């Protein structure tokens, strides 16, 4: 039985959703992880089977004797949230074949959440395995570009010039030296039916993509920007504003890749904001606004322009 796609015409209609993620979790005030989770979960009325990798989301939402999850949820370790949900999906298939599902008429969706550490770094092999095997699942990366849960160490998603505790800015260092890994390209190269970059601040674009993902057959990868008030060092009320700066400066462009090849840009800012404004709004880039390191801001802008150019060319070329 195919499940129906939930109708979400506008925000008013969306606001009739009954959340399946609960408050009094231990995430920081203003944490974007939670906003992302809400938009994903509320995008469907189907049942959900969820997994999370070790990280802020996990340690803040299932601390005994409390759980913030209203759907079945599992956590094993830092690297294997993908495999946990893949295993559950395999069991669903097996019990379906054998006629042992308790509610055979219902069509649960399988979703794994992981931080950028769990996704770009330690859990990469497991995710790659799950995608190659073609499990019917969605993997959502909560990309805050840092190991937030353990206090702000760099990950391979940390962008050049960010100060992280293991790549701190100092008198002879401008912080992180490596460019952010292009996870979108890597996941698209798996031939996944649907890969998309989303921002919770652009809720309509995001929810549409989540719904496309749920409708796809096979593994779906979602990379969600998750502005982290604690590690990016901005005031908690600014989470949405900072996220908008990321998308509107094109530091975090919103696009999708269908079947590994067809790239569509899904959001074109009316007014493109200078990268400088995005960087300047966050403490993690504060040191870039000094004589010594200011050249990096121009380099940033060049990199962002180039990437935007490339995305547009790929979109145009339909390859």
């Amino acid at each position, binding site marked *: 039985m195919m499940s129906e796609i939930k109708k979400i*015409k*506008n*925000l*008013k*209609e*969306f*606001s*009739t*959703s*009954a*959340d*399946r*993620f*609960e*408050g*009094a*979790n231990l*995430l*920081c*005030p*203003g*944490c*974007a*992880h*939670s*906003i992302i989770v*809400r*938009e994903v979960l509320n995008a*469907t*009325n*189907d*049942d959900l089977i969820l997994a999370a990798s070790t990280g802020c989301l996990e340690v803040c*939402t*299932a601390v*005994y*004797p*409390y*759980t*913030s*999850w*209203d*759907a079945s949820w599992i956590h094993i370790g830092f690297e294997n949230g993908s495999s946990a949900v893949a295993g559950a999906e395999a069991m669903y298939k097996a019990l379906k074949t054998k006629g042992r599902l308790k509610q055979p008429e219902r069509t649960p969706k399988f979703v794994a959440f992981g931080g950028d550490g769990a996704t770009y770094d330690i859990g990469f092999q497991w995710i790659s395995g799950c995608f190659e095997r073609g499990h019917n699942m969605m993997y959502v990366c909560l990309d805050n570009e840092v190991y937030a849960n353990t206090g702000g160490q760099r990950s391979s998603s940390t962008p050049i010039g960010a100060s992280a505790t293991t790549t701190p800015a100092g008198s002879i260092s401008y912080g992180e030296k490596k460019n952010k890994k292009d996870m979108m390209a890597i996941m698209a190269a798996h031939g996944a039916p649907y890969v998309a970059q989303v921002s*919770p*601040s652009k*809720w*309509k674009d995001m929810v549409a993509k989540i719904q496309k993902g749920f409708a796809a057959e096979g593994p779906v990868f979602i990379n969600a920007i998750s502005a982290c*008030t604690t590690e990016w060092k901005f*005031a*908690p*009320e*600014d*989470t*949405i*504003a900072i996220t908008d700066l990321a998308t509107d400066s094109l530091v975090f462009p919103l696009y999708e890749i269908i079947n590994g090849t067809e790239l569509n840009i899904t959001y074109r800012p009316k007014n493109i904001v200078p990268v400088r404004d995005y960087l300047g709004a966050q403490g993690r880039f504060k040191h870039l606004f000094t004589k010594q390191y200011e050249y990096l801001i121009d380099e940033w802008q060049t990199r962002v322009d180039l990437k935007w150019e490339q995305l547009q060319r790929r979109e145009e070329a339909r390859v």
Partner: protein
Amino acid sequence: MEKAGWDGFEIGAMLRTFDGAIQNIATTLPEDRAYSQSSSFTASVADWRIEKPLFNKDYCIDCQFCWIYCPDMSIIARDKKMVGIDFDHCKGCGICVEVCPTNPKSLLMFPEQKDEDMALAEWPKKEKKEKDTEVEED
């Protein structure tokens, strides 16, 4: 929840969200759910707040920006209307206030001890701007 002894809880540190069975969770509102003691819904983080948001429905246009961007499920929306704030779960982050598009804002931050009636009485008037904030029609 009371701290049980080693033989006083479910094996495997498993937690159940609800007492008894629940169907159609996705369309059942919190007030109609039988949350168990182990759902964090039954807990409170009110003491995290230094400031709290207060709501003035006179200016509200029910755009639901506050609902979608509240990280803590603390904007109560019913029948497409903003009806209030869940002060057990609100952490006082201030996002709802930031994203509220009305002029004056329909949500403002106040010290935790602030009396609501007083706050409403002192609510700022419409700010003169070159151009009123544009509200996206969705």
